[in-house]
């Protein structure tokens, strides 16, 4: 029964939501609206579990002075600092609490998270350039096609390309709209068919790995 009941719940829930998609009647929609509100609450509760998990995992590493343990302390402290200034200060009615303009939460977001994330993303430009230098070697016919297309799109999508040749943007749009789109659509259809077959296997209980084991 430990397996049959979850499979039955999964089957009923899955089939119901499929039917809801194809029968958009107001009465059915209102019933499923309640289900979706439940789903939002369950997802929100997952945050609490996630918080407990982060604390548990990092606590063990810190206790054993495992790899990078000083960073784990910073992580846990930062986590609780943001929760304190964002939620607890707000509940206590402290003026700099919450997430409104002028709050500590906002200040940390704009002055720590924002530049840190922007820096990480900015580094991509350097690594992509280095990777392009090494990867686009014309070793085979397929590699030459890839390199030539990449160069055409790369130059055609910036203003200097248009300066070099007025029809460069049109050529780039053609590449994006015809060969690229055909390939992409083929991948999407293939992936969708795969997703449908996996979903049917899960609903009918043939695929049970999500229950753990087997």
């Amino acid at each position, binding site marked *: 029964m430990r397996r049959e009941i979850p499979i039955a719940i999964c089957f009923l829930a899955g089939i119901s939501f499929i039917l809801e998609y194809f029968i958009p009647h107001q009465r059915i*929609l209102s019933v499923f609206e309640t289900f979706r509100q439940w789903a939002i609450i369950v997802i929100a509760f997952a945050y609490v579990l996630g918080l407990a998990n982060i604390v548990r995992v990092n606590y063990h590493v810190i206790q054993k002075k495992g790899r990078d343990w000083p960073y784990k302390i910073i992580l846990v402290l930062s986590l609780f600092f943001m929760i304190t200034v964002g939620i607890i200060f707000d509940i206590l009615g402290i003026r700099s609490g919450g997430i409104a303009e002028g709050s500590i939460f906002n200040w940390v977001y704009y002055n720590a998270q924002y530049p840190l994330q922007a820096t990480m993303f900015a580094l991509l430009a350097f690594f992509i*350039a280095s990777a*392009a230098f090494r990867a686009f070697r014309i070793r085979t016919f397929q590699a030459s096609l890839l*390199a030539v297309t990449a160069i055409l799109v*790369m130059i055609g999508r910036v203003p200097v390309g248009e300066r070099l040749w007025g029809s460069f943007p049109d050529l780039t749009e053609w590449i994006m*709209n015809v060969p690229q789109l055909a390939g992409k659509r083929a991948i999407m259809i293939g992936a969708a068919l795969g997703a449908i077959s996996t979903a049917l296997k899960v609903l009918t209980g043939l695929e049970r790995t999500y229950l753990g084991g087997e």
Partner: protein
Amino acid sequence: MEKLERLDRRIIFIFIFLSIAIPLLLPVNLDFSVTPPVQSFYDAIEELPAGSKVLVSCDYDPGSMPELFPMNVAVFYHLMSRDLKVITIQLWATGTLLAELAMAEVLEDFPDKEYGKDWVNLGFKEGREVVMVSMGTNIPKTFPSDSRGNKVEDLPIMQGVNTYDDIALFMNVSGGLPGTKEWVLQVQSRYHVKLGSGCTAVSAPEFYPYVQSGQLVGLLGGMKGAAEYEKLVQRPGTAQRGMDAQSVSHIVVFLFILIGNIAYFSVKGAKKRLKASR
């Protein structure tokens, strides 16, 4: 040539840094044309009658900000200039403050626009696709209050807004998942709404099939898409300023690919000749 083939990546880094920094400091403002996916999104907004409500979902983070923030600002500016009502939501927790920042920048040009009447930020809601679908049947139930704690039913802009039928156009500023793909699959295909997308350059190819099928009314791809939109709304911003840097850096990458291949074929030829002479 062997040395050139195995060029130290730090040299590449220096050239990339200079190719970005110099044009930013000394811009030449190269002109460019507007591509059809950007023009069609602009036209879709132009066709809306004044007072129509537009929902903008700002689903991105500071990591993708250089590409997405300028288009977020440009779209808000366009909506405000056309006297349309802006309802913004976020399915990424990091998007809330960025949407506020983008709107604050736009409101400098429109000091008369009022919060709650001309625009509203309903804030972040966890639940990804569930939230998208849930809004289709009941927006006030999904977002009972805005990001400032006001009851949605008390806001003038939200009067008469119950389902997606009450929204004239949707725009998703997409930094990843959940993003444009989910908006198309869960909202556009189900409720047949008018949806536009602004996304990073790297994810733009994924959404071209949706533009061709008509599921997206337009697509702003990366910083170039944002720059084109800034040009259309005649409000130059950071995307247009970044175009020179992007031009030069792309040329530098192209030159490195060329150098790498010249070195590769020279070394390969030299090895062949050495083998033949033995």
